[in-house]
């Protein structure tokens, strides 16, 4: 087991308490792609900050590779190296004079040599699709919003984490930037074997990418399963103020009107084929009736 959360409860402001998480039990294995969804305020951001010790749970334990991460606070540095966390609007954390220096901040903090740092910066920038020679000496503050975000993500990737957590990374990006980001996540997951936890409000993203979906509601895990299982529970999701992916919605509506289609399909091409096949089936049954 890579990550394990055990009976977690988290309360903010102990004297004016806000219970952000309660009764959380979650296990994550190496190589999973977890989609974490839930209404605003349901505790998603709190949950992921527990995973690398930025927050300590009020009760319960967090295990990483079998080790209680809060037992020995001194080893936190090591854990933060292995679990990269990209915060919401990560571009707000940029501060160095040049892109290269900013990306090198993490590697510098963990004490890597100059050569190793430069190598990491090159790799990280390349991963996020920014040309090293072109961007390394530019000020991060003169870049476009989308480029800034990619630099910030490179800053986390430069630590070569084993687990990458992203808190609503596509919020505020244009469709093209969003697509590139998703392509990057697929690459990191499939080619570099990173374990990924993605918080997102876009059900399409989660449905297409995640191997497992975890739904949070009011500080608790409300639903959990494959995208097909979770998005099959449209009624439950609606009660939690969550939408279905557009495709699922369309397929469900069609099915309700009598078209024989499956509803657990999350790619556009496959959905089209399924609908066409469904239409053909209906035609056939009509033909057989008229004969």
């Amino acid at each position: 087991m890579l990550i394990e959360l055990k009976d977690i409860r988290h309360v903010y402001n102990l004297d004016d308490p806000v219970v952000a998480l309660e009764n959380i039990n979650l296990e994550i294995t190496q190589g999973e792609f977890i989609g974490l969804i839930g209404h605003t305020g349901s505790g998603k951001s709190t949950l992921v900050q527990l995973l690398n010790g930025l927050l300590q749970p009020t009760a319960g334990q967090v295990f990483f590779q079998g080790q209680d991460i809060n037992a020995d606070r001194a080893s936190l540095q090591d854990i933060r190296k292995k679990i990269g966390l990209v915060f919401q609007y990560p571009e707000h954390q940029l501060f160095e004079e040049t892109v290269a220096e900013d990306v090198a901040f993490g590697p510098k903090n963990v004490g890597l040599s100059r050569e190793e740092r430069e190598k990491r910066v090159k790799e990280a920038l390349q991963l996020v699709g920014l040309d090293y020679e072109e961007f390394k000496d530019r000020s991060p503050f003169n870049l476009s919003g989308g480029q800034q975000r990619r630099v910030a993500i490179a800053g986390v990737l430069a630590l070569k984490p084993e687990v990458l957590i992203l808190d609503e990374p596509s919020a505020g990006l244009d469709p093209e930037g969003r697509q590139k980001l998703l392509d990057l996540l697929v690459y990191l997951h499939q080619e570099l074997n990173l374990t990924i936890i993605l918080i997102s409000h876009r059900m399409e993203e989660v449905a297409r990418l995640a191997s497992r979906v975890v739904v949070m509601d009011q500080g608790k895990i409300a639903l959990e399963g494959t995208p097909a299982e979770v998005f099959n529970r449209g009624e439950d999701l609606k009660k939690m103020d969550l939408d279905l992916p557009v495709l699922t919605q369309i397929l469900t509506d069609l099915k309700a009107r009598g078209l024989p289609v499956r509803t657990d399909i999350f790619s556009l091409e496959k959905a089209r084929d399924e609908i066409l096949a469904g239409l053909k089936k209906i035609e056939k049954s009509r033909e057989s009736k008229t004969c």
Partner: protein
Amino acid sequence: MLTDITIGQYIPGKSIVHRMDPRIKILITLIKITILFLIDTFWGFGLFLLLVVGILLAAKLPIKRVLRGLKPVFFLVILTLVLHLFLTRGGEVLWQWGFLRIEEAGVFTGFFMVARILLLIMFTSILTLTTSPLELTDGIEYLLKPLARFGLPAGELAMMMTIALRFIPTLLEEAEKIMKAQQARGADFESGNIIQRAKALIPLLVPLFISAFRRADELALAMESRCYRGGSNRTRLHELQLKKSDLILFFLAVIIAVFISFF
């Protein structure tokens, strides 16, 4: 942590302290702060503490929260105490070790300065915790009005102060967020000597300033697009009105102030 700082936060309520006229509250706060710097006996500080606790209870504020607001100045308090202990000379020598020496005057001044800092923060927190930003601006504006004759832009000043107060919690929240983001990249704000620690703050301060400027820009735009012009022609929806109870409380506060300063 940082968000523990209570200055600039407001907890709505219906207590007698909440309902007082903001002008009176500001005046009382000013008087009490002046008194705080005149007191120099244990009795005086004791009485002042009693007064603060009394007001806290009357205002039905969560005392724990107010106390927690003192945590961020802990370092300043310790520093003040240590400096006074070792550097202020006078009276009997209480303790000596090599060139280090603690004298009586040092103990007293150190204690008094610490008491002043803590009580000052508690008293001003009570003001902002029980007065909404809007009331606070109104109060400040009224009190500054006499100075408008000398060309002082009272309304603008009051607006600036309110905005500053209003944004302290926001900026602190922001600071905490940025701090966490840098910690996630392995930054260490908690260890090292003083120079290393100061240097470690750069990754926090630069983004913080940038975000403050961005917020200021956005706020200015938002205010302008709602036709804020400042100046003397602004009228208000709710005129402040002194009640009898306000005056009574004011005189009571003055009497208490005089009383305390006699100790």
